[in-house]
């Protein structure tokens, strides 16, 4: 039992960066923009987010406020990701470039920018960029009082996580509410399903696409920061966050473009990423656990195309540019 609780709590923490990455990408894809640059944006968010916390602490020294550092890291990561997404949006929406190729270019560019900033900081700061241990606790420890965390079972399952887990859940739920319950969310989905129909109904297709891609990119990038500040231990290492962004793209498909499903999907994927440490099966090599998220995603993809359930399909115009004069 305690083994299972430990596994679940670890899965939730590992899944948190994915949750941000996925929810951001869902927003973008719901507007019809398949932004494959998630990995790049998360890299940018990771490096810039760490940088923001690090330089803030360096500037104010011991007086550094933990909550403010967290906030700065979030803001910086968001802006970095949003800027990356802005490039993508400008190229694909205004200049009508191919979405796949532009997304891959952004992945390359963003990875480069992230690595570059990370390396540059390392070189400038003498080989090591990490925030102090005091500050670290604000990023990695639970914001709830010790008493709550110590409640048996519930304490571990509900109150033990770092602040980003709770923030991620809030963002995902808000995103779900926005997409499903508001008019603006409805119009956004209409843009992703059938831009021509939305356009004819007087919806500003370009504005919706721009905003959702940029905000989505920002949210995804926060996920990169969360990865660096939690899983990677608040320090820039050369590996960066290899593959986290691609996993987020997979999770978007796995949870069939629903932020609610992303909640448990991220825990599942997070669990699969760490399961090899905790569960050894005699007939299944532990190293293969890490490909399971991709395998189940492929299966989901195949099943949805075979079953042809109209509800669980990608947004109908995903990946396609919209030109009014060619309708």
């Amino acid at each position, binding site marked *: 039992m305690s083994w299972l609780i430990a596994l679940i709590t670890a899965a939730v923490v590992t899944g948190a960066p994915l949750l941000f990455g996925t929810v951001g990408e869902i927003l973008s894809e719901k507007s019809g923009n398949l932004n494959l640059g998630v990995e790049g944006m998360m890299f940018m968010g990771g490096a810039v987010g760490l940088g923001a916390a690090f330089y803030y602490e360096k500037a104010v020294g011991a007086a550094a406020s933990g909550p403010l550092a967290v906030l700065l890291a979030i803001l910086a990561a968001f802006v970095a990701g949003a800027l990356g997404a802005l490039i993508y949006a400008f190229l694909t929406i205004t200049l009508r470039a191919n979405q796949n190729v532009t997304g891959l270019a952004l992945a390359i560019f963003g990875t480069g920018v992230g690595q570059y900033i990370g390396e540059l900081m390392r070189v400038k700061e003498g080989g090591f960029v990490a925030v102090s241990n005091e500050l670290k606790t604000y990023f990695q420890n639970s914001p709830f009082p010790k008493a709550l965390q110590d409640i048996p079972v519930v304490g571990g399952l509900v109150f033990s996580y770092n602040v980003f887990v709770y923030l991620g859940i809030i963002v995902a739920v808000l995103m779900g509410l926005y997409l499903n319950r508001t008019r603006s969310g409805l119009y956004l989905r209409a843009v992703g399903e059938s831009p021509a129909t939305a356009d004819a109904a007087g919806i500003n297709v370009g504005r919706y696409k721009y905003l959702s891609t940029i905000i989505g990119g920002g949210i995804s990038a926060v996920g990169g920061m969360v990865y660096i500040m939690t899983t990677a231990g608040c320090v820039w290492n050369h590996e960066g966050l290899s593959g986290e962004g*691609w996993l987020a793209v997979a999770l978007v498909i796995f949870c069939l473009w629903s932020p609610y499903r992303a909640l448990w999907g991220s825990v599942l994927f997070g669990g699969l990423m760490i399961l090899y440490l905790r569960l050894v099966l005699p007939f299944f090599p532990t190293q293969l656990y890490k490909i399971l998220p991709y395998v189940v995603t492929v299966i989901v993809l195949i099943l949805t195309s075979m079953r042809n359930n109209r509800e669980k399909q990608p947004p109908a115009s995903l990946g396609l540019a919209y030109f009014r*004069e060619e309708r």
Partner: protein
Amino acid sequence: MHTSEHKTPLIRLAKREQMSPAAQWGIRIAAILLALVVGGLVIAISGSNPIAGYKTIVVGSLGKTSAFRQTVKNFIPLLGTALAIAPCFKMRFWNIGAEGQITAGAMCATYFALFWADQLPKVPLLLVMFVAGAIGGGLWALIPAFFKAKWGTNETLFTLMMNYIIIGFVKYLQGGPWEKMPRGSQQIAQFDSNACLPKVGGVYCGWIIVLILVFLMFWYMKYTKQGYEIAVVGESENTARYAGMNVPFIIMRTMFISGAISGVVGFMLASGANNTLYDGVAAGVGFTAITVAWLAQLNPFAMVGISAILAILEKGADSLQTEMQVPASISDIITGVLLFFMLGCEFFINYRLIFAGSGKKQENKKEVGA
């Protein structure tokens, strides 16, 4: 049903008739130059003189024989994979799974390198590895193609996922069944010299293979029946059916060929470049090559040029790091900027901006309603 069009906007767009090829390449070259200017700014930000920086890149990649050889090593897989992707993209099948197809090919070739090297002489062994690489990559590509042809499964997402499955599998082999003795290194043993591609001019002979492939692919796309079918399917499946073509079969065949070429690239990387297999054998080439193929307008000869530029950047950035302490990842940034500018410039090749007040032509073109 309420749009606010028709209040003639300030700027309107119209498709261009067709630009002369010279003007097209003029715009593209201008975009490359602009991208280099922006890249120069990035170099400047990191505290170095941009001109000196570019000089270091060029000298560092082409100046010395050893450097030049490394540049060629970067160039081979990039060009080979771009060539592999071309037929898919021509068919409007968005295969972004070259990364995985390379890995699959490398894995299958490695099997023979590891377990057959002592039983076969060099040439047959290499041939077997070549074929194994081709079949491995081809089959890995055939899976998403089959589902696309049969159920219309989204190929972009499918091929993307396939990358990580095979990479993860190779990682498992690397730390498991194929790990070299004594265990614990998480590495596969270096290939027997029998299983290594011979060098020609200091670099493994893959460069000859890809250069031959340039002509082969040009010929295939332009002069063969299959190339013709690919072009027709890409343009309009309706027309293809009208002409009596078997569209699902063409999709699968083309993907197999594309995957096979990527697989051969994987074989060359394992056998020629690394003399071993590891999970990062493709190292992002599969993705970069997609942009190469697209920017070259799927023209094999243009791919040679674009691959060369990117290979030079990549190698040059290493020199930049050692000589000027600029992080080598700057090559990814400049590559990204270059891609952005080239992607963006296509717009100005395909569209014309019309400013308000220059006639009502657009309206007159609309069809007479019934």
